[in-house]
């Protein structure tokens, strides 16, 4: 475990002194971390020294003699670097030219990536048959052209050199043929008792074809038990619908129809099926074009701070186990609950007034309101939410139901418990594990690590030879989603055929292949299973070949979305309660924002993506509120021991403003012991203290300080802009009275020593609507994939050397206990008066004729003056050879249109100049102007909430010009007169006047 006993990065902060200072108004309005609020010496050091440790490795010791030697040597070698000769290269054309492939031109294929079985439609960019970039599929209802960080990062997952590359049989390399023999022997022995000793363990299956194959298998062996399990299970959601309607159904929201939205501890904007679409619909209801525009209003009941809570106009902070009762209070205000079913301490007077005001607001919006229960909340909360939605006449308007998208919806936690019991009882002779990793992520008290070796014949199909594979007799390398045929359903049931972009890099087998072997159909190609299934489903299609081609081309199977289903709400839905049993400190388990349940642990892009509210990378933490931390005497980065259900684990503490008091949140997905060279050993395994009984919320946690410190890598205080009010916020009311509030200090005619440049033709610019940004981080990974940005690792992140060209700053506003949290993406501003350009001694950063601030790598000598002079702190320096120039499998992943940077050069956002050039060339060849919206930057493309707009600001009719003409538009650090091309649209909140009094303008 990586516990740094001597020197953690974050300083100790006296919270009570801060609280006093902030109530007295002695602190800045916006702040990024408690250490900024306290203005500690460590924070000042971060602020004043962009790279706190200079160019040296903090551990390196170099004396004067060695320094002189190195200087002399580098002077000598610097001269020699000009004497290189291009190596002789080979051109290897095809033997037979495939149709459609034109070298130098990418092709895009429609397919889907899945998370928890649920598909998001994507288009994959393929260069000479190498997939390099994922983009959203505009035709897919769950994507609408956007993507999340997980799907963006799946390209790195595909090329990951740590993926398993061979069949492993009891620790030795085996073969696929040998495996088939052994399997058929094992299954043959079971034939007599119709497979009663066989178990098939899979993740959630929404794939109709896989479902069909499994059913075939179950028909042949009727006594086989099929177990579905995900550690981030959606059991509570399923059980909630059963509680409310008596059957499992799939819930779909229509956020675009809702004017008032209430979340019951839900992060529906950035997590869960359909979140991309929901974020888009939500943001569209917040597009404020002028003082007459309307906005929706979001209320959040919340324990752990989430992106959705940060977007909320009103946020009520409470322990997760209180949400059930608070929902009942709300239901009672709406006249739904009679009698007393409340278990927790009653709300305070202010909380009560809040709930009453919310109830009145909901009643004013019958049929246009929406209550969203949280994924981790117990089924009763879901039942109450449905009851409230029904009472508010939202069914069919803002919420509707369909058949379940799962092939076989079951209670997964019950099934995994049953499986463990069966193994313990010796009733399992053959265990076939398809993808799942129960040794790592099944509830700890089931003890899979101990019981799995007891199974006489166990098989694991998996992407990595991980914790589970190590204990199975057979490990079969799994083909990545981008390598295999398959299908899956989206959030509303829309099916997508998953098509391979590349033949399996490491000889993996797809899930379809694996099930084919079980059914004795090993010789049938996996493509045929998918094709034949859908052909059988569409008997009335005239020419199925044409239908099939269209399906592959579009990325959706036509008419496959489930129609809305009539449900009947049980009369007592709102009366169901989960008795409040939490005693003592509450513990909340959550999927991690970047590695989810651990499946992405070996993905460097996701590991290094700062988590939205803590800005932490490479680690998971135990979050607790400032007040609770104070009571327990815990500070951020203290290594604390968590004891729950008799198990203990050591975790780093993170004091999180806005977290519920008397509650600790821990995140799944870390502490992997066999995930590969990136993921193994990062963070701590919260799953170790997660029992079968309480998968998400429990009470009775014991916390003890160990006295040790655990250094964490957070970017929250790096790249600061010195508190110059970089983010501007007002309420809708203030905005209506003073529409130019964001431009109060704007200077119409700023003076400059430099003559103004006149731009003919195109002039690029960007506008970012802070009202829309949810801070999900999809753009950060999209940029990383598009621009070949390197991963640097935890140590380097700690000293401010992360390489992201776009970062999402998070600002807090208000007191330390419950501040507002706001996100602001910051990338190169492409300043007209760029401070970086004038200080470069070798003219490696210059202005283009279209206004771009260009960075020329092969000219850069690495003085870093430019970065020093950049007020926005968006330049990134390659202190080491961060790009991997050695691993062959990663060569294929890179965007061939962007240079891979080497050590010693500066880099930064280029506005995706390779995309600008590609469109420019196409338009010039066709002798036409570039159309508005034709050039889409990678960040803009991935953004689910359409917060980022890029285009020609010389064209007054372009969408970006129109946004810049909006009176919310402001420039970051305008007083410096850098004249940035990237501008921001101020954020607006729409508070309920009954709850929040509008300050006088």
């Amino acid at each position: 475990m990586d516990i740094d006993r001597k020197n953690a990065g974050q300083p100790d902060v006296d919270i009570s002194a801060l609280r006093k200072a902030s109530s007295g108004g002695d602190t800045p309005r916006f702040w990024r971390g408690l250490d900024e609020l306290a203005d500690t010496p460590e924070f000042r050091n971060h602020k004043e020294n962009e790279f706190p440790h200079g160019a040296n490795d903090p551990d390196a010791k170099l004396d004067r003699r060695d320094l002189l030697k190195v200087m002399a040597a580098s002077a000598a070698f610097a001269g020699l670097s000009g004497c290189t000769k291009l190596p002789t290269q080979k051109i290897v054309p095809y033997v037979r030219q495939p149709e459609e492939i034109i070298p130098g031109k990418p092709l895009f294929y429609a397919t889907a990536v899945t998370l928890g079985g649920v598909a998001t439609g994507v288009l994959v960019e393929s260069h000479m048959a190498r997939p390099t970039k994922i983009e959203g599929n505009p035709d897919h209802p769950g994507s609408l052209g956007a993507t999340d960080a997980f799907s963006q990062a799946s390209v790195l997952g595909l090329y990951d050199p740590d993926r398993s590359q061979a069949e492993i049989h009891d620790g030795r390399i085996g073969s696929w043929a040998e495996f088939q023999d052994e399997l058929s022997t094992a299954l043959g022995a079971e034939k007599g008792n119709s497979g009663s000793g066989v178990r098939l363990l899979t993740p959630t299956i929404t794939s109709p074809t896989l479902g069909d194959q499994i059913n075939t298998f179950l028909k042949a062996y009727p006594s086989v038990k099929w177990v579905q399990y995900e550690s981030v299970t959606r059991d509570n959601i399923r059980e909630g619908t059963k509680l409310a309607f008596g059957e499992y159904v799939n819930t779909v929201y229509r956020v675009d129809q809702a004017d008032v939205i209430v979340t019951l501890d839900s992060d529906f904007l950035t997590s869960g099926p359909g979140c991309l679409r929901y974020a888009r619909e939500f943001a569209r209801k917040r597009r404020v074009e002028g003082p007459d525009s309307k906005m929706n209003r979001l209320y959040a009941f919340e324990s752990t701070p989430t992106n959705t809570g940060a977007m909320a106009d009103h946020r009520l902070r409470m322990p997760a186990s209180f949400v059930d009762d608070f929902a009942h209070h709300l239901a009672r205000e709406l006249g739904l609950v009679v009698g007393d079913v409340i278990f927790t301490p009653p709300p305070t007077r202010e909380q009560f007034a809040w709930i009453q005001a919310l109830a009145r607001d909901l009643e004013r919006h019958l049929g246009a309101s929406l209550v969203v229960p949280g994924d981790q909340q117990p089924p009763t909360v879901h039942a109450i939410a449905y009851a409230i939605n029904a009472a508010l006449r939202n069914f069919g308007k803002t919420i509707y139901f369909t058949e379940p998208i799962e092939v076989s919806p079951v209670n997964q936690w019950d099934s995994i418990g049953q499986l463990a019991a069966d193994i313990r009882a010796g009733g399992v002779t053959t265990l076939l594990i398809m993808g799942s990793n129960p040794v790592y992520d099944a509830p700890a008290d089931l003890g899979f690590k101990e019981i799995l070796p007891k199974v006489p014949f166990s098989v694991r199909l998996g992407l990595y030879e991980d914790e589970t594979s190590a204990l199975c007799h057979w490990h079969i390398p799994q083909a990545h989603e981008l390598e295999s045929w398959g299908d899956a359903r989206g959030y509303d049931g829309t099916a997508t055929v998953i098509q391979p972009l590349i033949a399996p890099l490491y000889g993996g087998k797809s899930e379809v292949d694996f099930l084919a072997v079980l059914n004795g159909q090993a010789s049938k190609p996996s493509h045929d299973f998918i094709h034949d299934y859908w052909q059988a489903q569409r008997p009335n299609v005239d020419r199925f070949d044409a239908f099939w081609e269209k399906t592959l081309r579009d990325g959706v199977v036509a008419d496959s979305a489930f129609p809305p289903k009539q449900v009947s709400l049980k009369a007592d839905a709102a009366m169901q309660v989960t008795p409040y049993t939490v005693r003592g400190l509450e513990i909340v388990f959550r999927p991690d924002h970047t590695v989810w349940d651990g499946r992405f642990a070996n993905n460097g892009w996701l590991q290094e993506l700062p988590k939205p509210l803590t800005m932490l990378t490479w680690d998971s933490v135990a979050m607790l509120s400032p007040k609770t931390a104070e009571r327990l005497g815990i500070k951020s980065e203290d290594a604390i021991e968590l004891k729950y259900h008799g198990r203990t684990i050591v975790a780093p503490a993170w004091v999180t403003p806005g977290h519920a008091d008397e509650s600790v949140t821990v995140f799944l997905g870390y502490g992997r012991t066999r995930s590969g060279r990136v993921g193994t050993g990062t963070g701590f395994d919260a799953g170790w203290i997660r029992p079968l009984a309480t998968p998400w919320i429990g009470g009775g946690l014991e916390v003890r300080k160990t006295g040790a410190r655990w250094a964490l890598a957070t970017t929250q205080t790096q790249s600061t802009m010195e508190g110059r009010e970089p983010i501007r916020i007002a309420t809708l009311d203030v905005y209506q009275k003073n529409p130019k509030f964001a431009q109060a200090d704007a200077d119409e005619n700023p003076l400059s020593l430099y003559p103004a440049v006149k731009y003919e033709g195109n002039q690029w610019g960007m506008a970012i609507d802070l009202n829309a940004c949810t801070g999900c981080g999809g753009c950060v990974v999209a940029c990383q994939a598009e621009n070949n940005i390197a991963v640097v690792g935890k140590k380097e992140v700690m000293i401010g050397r992360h390489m992201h060209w776009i970062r999402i700053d998070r600002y807090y506003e208000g007191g330390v206990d419950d501040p507002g949290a706001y996100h602001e993406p910051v990338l190169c501003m492409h300043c007209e008066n760029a401070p970086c350009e004038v200080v470069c001694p070798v003219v490696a950063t210059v202005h283009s004729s279209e206004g771009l601030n260009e960075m020329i790598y092969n000219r850069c000598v690495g003085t870093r003056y430019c970065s020093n002079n950049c007020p926005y702190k968006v330049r990134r320096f390659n202190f080491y050879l961060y790009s991997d120039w050695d691993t062959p499998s990663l060569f294929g992943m890179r965007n061939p249109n962007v240079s891979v940077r080497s050590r010693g050069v500066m880099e930064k956002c280029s506005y995706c100049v390779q995309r600008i050039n590609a469109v420019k060339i196409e338009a010039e060849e066709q002798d036409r102007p570039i159309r508005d919206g034709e050039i889409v930057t990678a960040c803009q493309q991935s953004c689910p909430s359409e917060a980022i707009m890029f285009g020609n600001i010389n064209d007054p009719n372009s969408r970006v010009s129109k946004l810049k003409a909006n009176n919310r538009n402001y420039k970051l650090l305008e007083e410096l007169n850098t004249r940035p091309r990237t501008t921001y649209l101020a954020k607006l909140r729409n508070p309920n006047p009954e709850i929040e009094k509008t300050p006088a303008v």
Partner: protein
Amino acid sequence: MAQIFHRSTNTISRVSIYGAVILIAILGYAVNVVNQTSYVTEVHNARPQPVPFSHKHHVGELGLDCRYCHSSVEDSSSAGMPATQTCMVCHSQIWTSAAILEPVRASYRDSTPIAWTRVNALPDFVYFNHSIHVAKGVGCTTCHGPVAEMNITWREQSLYMRWCLECHNSPEKYLRPKSEVFNAFYKPPADQEALGNRLMSEYKVRKLTDCTTCHR
């Protein structure tokens, strides 16, 4: 006490100081000269190929169009190299037993590609696009030289940045009518400047010297 240094030290120190300066200057000049030689630039060095393909024969004598083999030159950044199949269109009919064509037949027979030696190469940080140059009236032979006279293909130009900029700064010296772009025997007219200027406005050719035009 005797002099520590002999009188000659004065001369030696002068010679060595000035000599060092001169030596560095000579070295710098020599490096520059060496960098211009065809040893470094590969200019006019015919590169050995697995099959001694003659552009002189195919283009100069038979009159094949460039695009017959380099088929993506008008569509893509890459001009494209012909697949073995393209060779076999003719060579399954003529010269079917010629010994020098055996690698081509073997490639087609065994489905193993032919590994040609690259003649015109740019560093990895340069992003050149064929299609836009062709579309704007830059002829093939302007950069690739008298292809119709090359028995074994050589590099005609250094492909150094200063060479690129010659044309990017004054395209009028090199442009030709679009109809002549693929003409391997094109000779620029005497009044090239006048023609070039006319074509520049007709084809909307701009002098692109932004760094990101080629580097990104």
